[in-house]
């Protein structure tokens, strides 16, 4: 069985679009997964569903929601003598107060782009004289891979691998969004791969507390359309959590991955770029792993710029990008301020591109 193209069935797409049209009504759904955002944009799903369904992009990209303060910290750590910072490529261009990691490299910081945290472990094994710091960014999909790497390092008694943990978790963010006044989203399209780890049961609070439906789904056009159709149906039948991505998501998630995370990390409050501090939405190393924690190192940080970025309101669908005072002026894809511009598929970046192209 091939799993790449098999789910791309044009006939099924047409049937689903027709079904959604027939269902009628007006709906605003939020997807909270950068890969969904990307798939929706690449496949041109929004125009297929206009005007009855408005799909808005929530804070679904862990890279983009990393706060400028956390970037500042990463840069300061990377500039410490003897340190090599290992990071996923996505993080290189995310701006802090005074530039990005890419800028820091030009200024002499040692940064290496890796595909896996295991490469950071390997770097630490090969160069015992270097302090290798892994920049831990990502939601529940990524956090277990970092946890497993740290467990491996401890088992091998590697003493020169460290972690800067800016990991975040999705359910606390959904709860924070849902609790906002004026939050007027009619349903969530939930991330497939986060859910593969945490399981569908982790979301039951959404219909229970907020009375809106949600669907876990995959990344093919058909997956997303199916989710939209199910959300519309549940608006009349009653809200629940549905799992359309049953090929990868079980009710209880992946117990081994959850257990690795639990051994290594504990929840802390975390700041989301463009939003605010969300209680219990970050993951910090537990006491047992303090020796690995580069977050405890003393570094000097630049004075923080005051931001008037309105990404928070854009993420909640309350305003459109041009209503933000920074849009297209101080904030552009080349020098982004907030997460909606940082991600190339973010609401502001897409809006900017289309305005530029169509004017």
């Amino acid at each position, binding site marked *: 069985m091939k799993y*790449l193209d098999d789910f791309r069935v044009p006939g099924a797409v047409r049937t689903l679009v027709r079904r959604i049209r027939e269902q009628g009504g007006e709906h605003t759904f939020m997807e909270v997964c950068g890969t969904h955002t990307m798939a929706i944009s690449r496949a041109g799903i929004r125009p297929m569903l206009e005007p009855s369904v408005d799909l808005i992009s929530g804070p679904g990209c862990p890279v983009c929601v990393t706060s400028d303060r956390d970037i500042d910290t990463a840069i300061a750590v990377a500039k410490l003598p003897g340190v090599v910072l290992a990071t996923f490529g996505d993080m290189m261009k995310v701006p802090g107060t005074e530039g990005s990691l890419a800028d820091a490299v030009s200024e002499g910081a040692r940064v290496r782009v890796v595909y896996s945290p295991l490469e950071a472990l390997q770097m630490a094994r090969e160069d015992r004289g270097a302090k290798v710091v892994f920049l831990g960014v990502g939601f529940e999909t990524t956090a*277990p891979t970092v946890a497993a790497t740290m467990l491996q390092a401890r088992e091998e008694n590697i003493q020169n691998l460290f972690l800067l943990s800016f990991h975040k978790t999705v359910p606390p963010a959904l709860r924070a969004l849902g609790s906002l006044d004026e939050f007027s989203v009619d349903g969530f399209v939930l991330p497939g791969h986060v859910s*593969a780890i945490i399981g569908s049961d982790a979301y039951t609070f959404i219909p229970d507390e907020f009375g809106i439906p949600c669907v876990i789904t995959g990344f093919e056009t058909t997956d997303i359309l199916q989710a939209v159709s199910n959300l519309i149906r549940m608006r009349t039948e009653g809200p629940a959590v549905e799992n359309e991505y049953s090929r990868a998501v079980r009710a209880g998630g992946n117990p081994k*991955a959850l257990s690795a995370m639990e051994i290594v990390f504990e929840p802390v409050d975390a700041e989301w770029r463009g939003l605010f501090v969300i209680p219990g939405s970050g993951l910090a190393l537990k006491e047992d792993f303090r020796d690995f924690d580069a977050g405890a190192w003393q570094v000097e940080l630049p004075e923080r710029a005051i931001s008037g970025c309105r990404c928070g309101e854009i993420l909640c669908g309350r305003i459109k990008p041009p209503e933000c005072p920074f849009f297209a002026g101080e904030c552009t894809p080349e020098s982004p301020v907030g997460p909606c511009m940082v991600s190339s598929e973010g609401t502001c970046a897409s809006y900017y591109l289309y305005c530029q192209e169509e004017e």
Partner: protein
Amino acid sequence: MCLAIPAEVIEVLDEDVALMEIGGARKQVNISLVDDVSTGDYLLVHAGFAIEKVDEGEARKTMELLEELARLDEVP
């Protein structure tokens, strides 16, 4: 958010590592977060780790549903 792709297990090399393939490209992947991996399994790979198995039965059900939807498209 998270890019993860289904890849096929070609060979389980040891308790923690399997050689996996996607479209002819091969890579050693850490399988310590997934139970009972064997040759021919499809696993979701993210950041060098397998994070979950793809359930063949569920995948087939989804495929059948899509085929059914595609057939509906052909009905005038």
